[in-house]
């Protein structure tokens, strides 16, 4: 593979990763559900751009396929599904939060530091052009994980899951120049089906509980 590592390219990839992280914070701070979906779509676009950049710099062609799929599935199809789900719901905002926005943002800041700390010992081993992205990817995964715990609406939890998936994909693209194509296709398929299933669930939850607040899901207890 033609491994050009111009510093400018490396910095551009870092910029793309940083933009992804920034949208993560925006999602955490956002209360309106439809805005969260838009932000997720924006994040997916950044992800696709970063992936295209990596593909261009390294000359590995199958990353282009992954970038195209990211645009189609994560920036167009899944946001549409989520928007449809939200339209059917009687609520458009996250009203009750376990942890308020400023505190959430602070915690996310700490998570970013933890991510850099964890990956510190292994980053020097990467001779690749984008090794810092691994830390950012882990940070995004952790923030997604946190959002899932901190938010109650089924839709927000789904977005948090998708954000985690974006983080993983960034890790896979930036740190390892993409996983084997068969794996990448499988992951896309799984994510798409997961989003569809979650959509069906929110409809059923809405019909049965008259709410998609997962706090109502508390009948199964010890």
């Amino acid at each position, binding site marked *: *593979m033609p491994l050009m590592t111009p510093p400018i390219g490396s910095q551009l990839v870092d910029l793309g990763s940083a933009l992804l992280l920034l949208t993560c914070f925006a999602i955490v701070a956002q209360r309106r559900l439809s805005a969260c979906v838009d932000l997720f779509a924006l994040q997916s676009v950044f992800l696709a751009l970063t992936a295209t950049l990596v593909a261009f710099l390294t000359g*590995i062609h199958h990353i282009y396929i992954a970038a195209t799929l990211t645009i189609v599935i994560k920036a167009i199809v899944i946001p549409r599904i989520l928007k449809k789900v939200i339209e059917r719901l009687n609520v458009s905002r996250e009203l009750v939060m376990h942890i308020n926005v400023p505190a959430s943002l602070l915690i996310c800041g700490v998570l970013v530091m933890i991510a850099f700390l*964890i*990956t510190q*010992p*292994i980053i020097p*081993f*990467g*001779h690749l052009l984008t090794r810092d992205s*691994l830390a950012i*990817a*882990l940070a995004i*995964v952790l923030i*997604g*994980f946190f959002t*899932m715990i901190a938010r109650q609406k*089924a839709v927000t*939890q789904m977005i948090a*899951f998708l954000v*985690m*998936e974006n983080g*993983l994909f960034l*890790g*896979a693209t930036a*740190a*390892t*120049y993409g*996983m*084997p*194509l*068969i*794996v990448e296709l*499988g*992951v896309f*398929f*799984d994510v798409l*089906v*997961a989003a569809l*299933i*979650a959509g069906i*669930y929110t409809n*059923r*939850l809405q019909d*049965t*509980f008259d709410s998609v607040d*997962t706090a109502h*899901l508390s*009948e*199964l207890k*010890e």
Partner: protein
Amino acid sequence: MSDFTMTIAVSLLLLAPLLAGGLSLLLSSSRWLHVTNLTSIGTLVAAEVMIARSVLGQGSLTAFGEIIYIDALSSVILFIIGTVGLACSLYMRSYMDEQVARGVIAPKRLNLFFFLFHMFLLTMVVATVANSLGVQWVAIEATTLTTTFLIAFWRRRESLEAGWKYLILCSVGISLALFGVVLMYYSSLRVLGDVSSALNITQLQQVASQLDPHILKLAFVFLFVGYGTKVGLVPMHSWLPDAYTEAPAPVAAMLAGVLETVAVYAILRCRGIVDQAVPPAFTGGLLAFFGLVSFALAAFFILLQHNYKRLFAYSSIEHMGLAMVGFGIGGPIGNFGGLFHLVNHAFAKSLAFFAAGNIHRRFKSVEIDEVHGLTTVLPWSALALLIAGLALATLPPFALFSSEMQIITALGSSGLPGEWTQPGTRFPIVVLLLCSLVAFGGLLYRIAGMVWGVAPKDIVPGEQWSVGHVPIILLGAVLVGFCWALPPPLQQLFEAASTLLVNW
């Protein structure tokens, strides 16, 4: 056997559930749905027998240009998938038909049920035979997606809740495992270069000792947390009791008996690679520690249960913890014990859930306090419940006793791995024995109350013979039989698999 026969056997393994799943959506009569189901699972078992024989004779095999990799360990897992799947299929013949007859589900929804059931089987088979760790991840995530609607199949409030919880918790857990896979790839790229086979087990095993230990350690932690969620290890277990309670009985049996086993298998596969670069005490310590914690906590939760399906769910966590302890200690006895425990647990737990399904249908309640006098109401199911209960409490004439003894022997002779225990300390073994005593008491007390006593007046006594009783009798016989002697081919297979686990 030639390569050609093996290719056919492997294709049958994958095609049988795929075709049956497709057919299930088209057929309209329940009789044909069951025929398709039994034919497909029968084919699956036949293919497995052929593959296992070849693996025993000629060692591991790869097929379709190294996409498929099967060795003795995967053959054992395939054996569990096939046998438990067959038992469930026979049981479903009477179980699902009765649900349709009673009007619990519309006849049309049977199609969906069988479709999802076959996809569930397919994803588990793929997860077991895949050579690439990435494909294995994709398949395990797909098991989550196929089972979530099976868990929520009755569409009651509680089942929707259980299904959603399962979907979210397991998807998140599995995402962490994907990060582990990415890290694994990150480390192997530096040795193997950017080739699509850099995640293949066959490739990784050859170069494992050259991989970077720091990256592998981090990768294993993520993989362990991710797949551990699927196994139901404490503290990632909270989805498990809900899912097992709400799922239809045959699905609960598959989840408890097979899905957990496949997740354990995924952990063991990764461990086999990590252990070559990192001292085995690292992975072994993690496995044994979380196994012991799960075992101990689940034993106490068993005491608190008022719902017999939850009782069995916690007993699942307990036994998976015990098997993990076995694998964590390692060595010939520990690994054999762990593997044998997985098999025995799969049989005992399916038997338990079949009995629980029969009881639930008659008593319309999952509360232990509302079920009494099973000996008069459902004599066969009472016997099944008793056998399953005694086996799960690891009493002597049942197979789980012998595997638990092996694990305890291994613990006694080698002690826990890792730096956090002194060599030769008796503490872990005392904890293990005390907790198994607690679990034993809890299980027996609850089950004795259900089996004996005076039946409530409004319950009709009498148990009609049905196809669903065949697997119950067979499983009971196997549980007793495996305590005394393993059939020689099976013993060879288990020994080959544990040898593989000892020295990768």
